[in-house]
């Protein structure tokens, strides 16, 4: 009961419901995550950052070549990432080397 009462009290004290004329704007903080240095890092950063921040890589479970090949293939086939054949190889090797099984 205490929690609901508190919530209601706060609500009544500071009721801010949206009405005509209101504009809400936000600015997202900068992306700060960096990849591990190594051959293929530049290509990996460039390709992946087109659509998402690099923590999409660093928070994944570490995996071998098969996992990262699967991921790169999915990014290209499902989401249409445009990566040259040469870069695909570099990126897959970079990921398997630096974000391999932990």
């Amino acid at each position, binding site marked *: 009961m205490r929690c*609901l009462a508190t*919530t209601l009290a706060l*609500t009544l004290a500071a009721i801010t419901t*949206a009405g005509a004329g209101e504009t809400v704007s936000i600015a*997202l903080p900068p992306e700060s995550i960096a990849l591990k240095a190594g051959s293929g890092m530049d290509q990996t950063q460039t390709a992946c950052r087109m659509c*998402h921040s690099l923590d999409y890589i660093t928070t994944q*479970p570490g995996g071998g070549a098969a996992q990262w090949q699967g991921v790169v293939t999915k990014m290209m086939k499902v989401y249409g990432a445009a990566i040259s054949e040469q870069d695909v190889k570099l990126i897959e090797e970079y990921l398997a080397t630096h974000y391999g099984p932990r």
Partner: protein
Amino acid sequence: MHHHLDEVTRRRFLLTAGVAAATIVGRRPSFAADVDSLLAGRPLVRYPEKTDLILLTARPPQLETPISYFDRAITPNDAFFVRYHVFPIPASVDLDQWRLEVKGHVDKPLSLSMDDLKKFPRTSVTAVAQCSGNSRGRFAPRVLGGQWGDGAMGNAVWTGARLQDVLKAAGARSGALDVTFDGLDKPAFPTVPDFVKALDLQRIMSDPEVIVAYEMNGQRLPMLNGFPARLVVPGWYATYWVKNLSEITVLTDRFEKFWMKPGYRIPDTPCGCVEPGTAPKNTVPITRMTVRSFIASPATGTRVAVNQPVVLKGIAFDGGYGIREVQVSDNLGITWSRAMLGPDHGRYSFREWSATWKPTGAGTARLMVRAFNSIGESQSYEPLWNPAGYLRNVIEQITLVVA
């Protein structure tokens, strides 16, 4: 608040508990073993209209609520988790410009302003929004996808217009089957599938608690939780709760684009699970949430004193049948004791619970919690598994260090 626990002995669990006990004695978990290794490296960040949350990803933003907030029924707006699929997300919404379009197979297409939306009868429901992949990071074997801990969930009082009232005003024509929902988040590249979700029209028309919400805990929605309006589908995973809602489209067929198929699907088996590491034969869209319960306080790893009572607090919830009972165990499930339930905010809400536990000897204590809903569904000792990392509802536990 302090009360004696009823002993509820569940002998049928003796065997399972015995196995668990043997494993744990063999491993002797240390204090360090109970630091959450999944979340250990993740920074706390402060995003607009938000308090400090655990960063999963920056773009699109995915932020997790720390477990300490789940010692109470209502999750504060600024602590509520954030999950987007595509980028950019809306950076600014001007209510003079914003409209909710209702179109497709309808008699009278609508273009609703916020004032128009507020003219529909106002209704509220207290309901849990939980990401389908909440706790995915705890799957073994590990699966790819957002590596959430347990904080991709929250509970709020949602207020808005009934979706069925909005659709009645537009007049869905006969032959209408699915209704799709799209928001202001739009992928930067046309090759990336836009985030669009679908509900069956009959399901909407038979459920007056599915709402287009413009208030969350009595305030306008934070932008990152869907300002100015979002869909609320009580009992179902949050994948359907489309944020920054802008378009509702009535279709004459079944909608099976990316985020409905192959996205957000579970094995077509009674448990929604398969043998770990294997692929399901058939899949169906994920829908209703499973039973879960958590101990939020004290935090795992906390040091407590022998013979000093400790108040355990947490929440339990399910997919809409309502929580009937919460139990805790300090002996790996050999016996269970009934916890005291907090006020009932409705069958879709978190149910707060508390229990008093008295440590009787020094060492490491393992405390487990499980819940039962009103149709007898509960949680299991062994986690289920599926390749997408959905539906997790294993019995949770914390460790306290008794000294």
